[in-house]
């Protein structure tokens, strides 16, 4: 019997030590005792996987934390964990339609729907970053000059930098305070087209609505508790799997919101994972590190904690300072400084150029997999009730 169940394969599923495919070929399951033991090892395996991968994520250097590549790895971890979780659910479908399991899993799927909005908002945020990347490109075009820098080039760079600053400021404003967003259009009438374009961008029907709030979504996603002992027993340990996946999901969504610009980016989110769960430690540690980063003075008012955004902010503000301080005719030392800063900016730019497209693809993938996972899960529950 051919199975094509998983679509794109995930190598981590075979970590079980036996192929998922072979398990599904035998719908007649083992005896009850064996079943319990088998479920335990599945759930343990999931937890070990989560522990291991989050340890990997948390043991990165500070310059890599919350970078585009790190976010990409995080999404990868999420997708893998979700596949494993799906497999566990599928293997234990007989338990699904009984309480308390049915409620636990249905609630999980409800929470996962909130993640879809987050994915859409993140996608918008990435698009916004792309616009900034274009401004950077102009700055580089102006300043990456073979000949001695003249006033014209400096002015050109400054204009692009100003546009960039305003863009990032607008993003900050609209993201932190919902009230600010209902500005009168009149204020922008005289201004250049960039404000209009921002406004229009927000009005895209396939973005999130104007009243959407990332922090509210996170609150909803975080609305669950560690499983009680009687729940664990009644569900043959599956409650632990649901809890594990819920925490992973929450963390991933939270980290995305923390990193990428989106509306109402509140970062208050508590992870109170009981010590009995070994994977809680790396998640807590990551949470702490990210919160520390958010509290840093230079990052407090940022529109997103993504390392590359910091890179843009830093190199842009250095460059603005630098160019402001230039007096013509430009002195050699000043020019040297500018060229150095250009090199810094190039690194940021190149990083974004290669990283953004694949990241956007991953976010879209995550969206679809969340939908698919939920549909299949709910289907299993419904079939169990027949």
């Amino acid at each position, binding site marked *: *019997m*051919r*199975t*094509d*169940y998983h*679509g794109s394969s995930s190598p981590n599923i075979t970590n079980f030590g036996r192929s998922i495919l072979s398990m599904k070929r035998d*719908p007649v399951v083992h005896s009850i005792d064996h079943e319990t033991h088998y479920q335990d090892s599945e759930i343990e395996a999931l937890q070990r996987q989560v522990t291991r991968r989050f340890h990997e994520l948390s043991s990165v250097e500070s310059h890599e934390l919350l970078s585009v590549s790190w976010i990409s790895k995080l999404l990868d971890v999420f997708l893998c964990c979700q596949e494993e979780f799906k497999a566990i659910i599928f293997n234990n479908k007989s338990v699904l339609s009984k309480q308390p399991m049915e409620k636990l899993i249905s609630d999980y799927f409800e929470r996962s*729907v909130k993640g*879809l909005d987050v994915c*859409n908002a993140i996608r918008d945020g990435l*698009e916004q970053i792309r*616009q900034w990347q*274009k*401004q950077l*490109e*102009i700055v580089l*075009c102006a300043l990456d000059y073979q*000949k*001695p820098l*003249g*006033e*014209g*080039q400096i*002015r*050109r760079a400054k*204009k*692009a930098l100003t546009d960039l600053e305003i863009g990032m400021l607008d993003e900050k404003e609209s993201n932190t305070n919902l009230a600010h967003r209902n500005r009168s259009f009149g204020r922008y009438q005289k201004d*250049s*087209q*960039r404000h*209009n*374009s921002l406004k*229009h*961008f927000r*009005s*895209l*029907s*396939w973005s999130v609505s104007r009243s959407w709030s990332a922090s509210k979504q996170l609150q909803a996603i975080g609305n669950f508790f560690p499983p009680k002992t009687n729940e664990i027993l009644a569900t043959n340990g599956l409650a632990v799997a649901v809890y594990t996946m819920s925490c992973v999901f929450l963390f991933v969504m939270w980290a995305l919101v923390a990193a990428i610009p989106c509306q109402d980016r509140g970062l208050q989110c508590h992870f109170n994972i009981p010590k009995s769960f070994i994977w809680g430690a790396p998640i807590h540690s990551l949470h702490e590190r990210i919160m520390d980063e958010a509290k840093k003075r230079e990052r407090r008012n940022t529109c997103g904690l993504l390392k590359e955004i910091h890179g843009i902010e830093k190199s842009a503000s250095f460059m603005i300072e630098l160019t402001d301080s230039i007096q*013509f*005719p430009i002195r050699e030392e000043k020019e040297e400084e500018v060229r150095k800063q250009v090199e810094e900016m190039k690194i940021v730019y190149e990083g974004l150029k290669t990283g953004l*497209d694949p990241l*956007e693809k991953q976010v*879209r993938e995550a*969206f*679809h*997999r969340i*939908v*698919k996972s*939920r*549909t*299949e899960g*709910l*289907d299993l529950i419904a079939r169990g009730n027949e």
Partner: protein
Amino acid sequence: MAENGEEKLIAVARHIARSLGHTDNAITDDILQIFSNFDGRFKEKLTGNLSGNDGGPALDQALKTIDRRVSRYLTVDEPIWSSSADASLFLAGVDELIALIREWSAMADEVAVTSCLDRAEDLLQRCMFRLEEEFKMLIVESAGNTVGGGGGAGGHLDSDSDEVEHDGFDEVDVPVAHPVTDYNIRIDALSSGMIEDLHEIAKRMLAAGYGKECSLAYSTCRRDFINESLSRLGFLGSQNSSGEDNDIEIEKWIKAINMAVRVFYPSEQRLCDRIFGYSSATAAAAGDLSFMDTCRVSTMELLNFANGIAMGSRSPERLFKILDVYEAVKDLLPEFEVLFSGHYCSLLKNEAIAVWKKLDESIRGIFVELENLISRDPVKTTVPGGGLHPITRYVMNYLRAACSRPTLEQVFDDNANRSSSSSSLSVQISWIMEVLERNLESKSRAYRDPALSSVFLMNNGRYIVKKVKDDELGVLVGDDWIRKQTSKVRQHHANYQRNSWHKILNSLKLDNSNLSSNVASKSLKDKLKLFNTQFDEICRTQSAWVIFDDQLREELKISVAGTLLPAYRNFLGRFHNLQDIGRYADKYVKFAIEDIEARIDDLFQATAMAGTGRK
């Protein structure tokens, strides 16, 4: 001699010009002009060879002239392009500036020239800044009305009316009112005059190396226009969280993607072509990049929707909706190839191809899932009376419906071209039938009575053949297959006959040996008794059996009657000849020939619903 004199003359001329020009550069220009015109030889000698001491001042003068001409435009508040005369003058000044810089950059090896050049570049930047503002104003003005709401200025298509309004623009192609499914219309978003203006500005910005600013300004505005236009068609992106296919959403998407690829994007491409032009590699690249940036967000969003459909469940019911989406994408692929053939746009084209492949995969995955569903169908529960099993009905009707979609064959054939191990549709269908057959065979073994098993297989086999014949399915599986299946049904028929009636026919077997009349008589009487019981039993049992097909039922009855009646007649004949029977024959003979006939006629009368499930 003459040369010497000439040189002296030239030197004097220059000296005069310079001294007089101390106070007013304009005079210097004029004087030099006069001298040049005086004698053609002077022209070269006076204006040529500007290196050395003459470089700086000459450039300086030229620059000052241009500065005078453009500066007033740089400071004015009103748009320069509100007056085409002003616009022309400004552009002429910019042209000169660009040409000047170009000319002098080649000779920029001394300080005087360099510092002049810096000022020139500075002036150029200010001009470019102004041009960028003008550009933005023009392009937003034309699209702005439509994005803001209402109005048709800009050739925007409203979902309320299918007509395009074109207030006050000349030379816009006038599309007639068209039905929604006709995408054979052309819209021109901006007026020719507007496009010309934008083109003139873009030309200079590109020439000055400010193409990126121009491209960014252009694509930001046009992108918003496209996105807004599409969302007004009702396409709301991938917001479907329920995971269920929504027919209305799919319809809207089909409309949106067709509008986008057949109407909007070509219009944008024409716009890019006309505004950026092909005069140089830079211009062409800027046009391609601008076009890509304009279309990227909406294209990805449209394709993402299709991707979501492809990633949904493999449940067989989804086939037809996925086919709709697949068809839409496939039909548009040639357009994608043409539209996004440029270097920057290739990622969009590739995305379309990737989505198409995913849809292809999901369709083939559905057949795998169908296979699984069939082979996993429980074999233990039986259909009462050996009738038609729901799965047979489901699969055959499903396959007929599926194969009525010509695209399905394309899905499997496309794949066959790519890799030899995958199947064409015929092979896939035959395989599904085989899986069904195997499952039915397993199911048939659940009946305790082998005769009933045969009836079950007859019924389902017959149904399959009927559904395949005279249908696209028949063409796919081929005549050979149909013949084989038909003969299988006949085989089941023969098995049934043997299993059910073998014993009872044995009872009617006549012994031709010479037994004493008493023994012979007793034997016949016993046999008849046995026959009566057996026949009664069979009839009772088999009247609850189902043969759904009228023709098949008749065939069976005829063949049963054809075997039983002659044997019985024969037997009765012998029986009536017994000497000790006489008028007591009626005591033993329960069934007259007519009765047998009537009872046989009553067989298989149960419908699938009424059967009482005797195994």
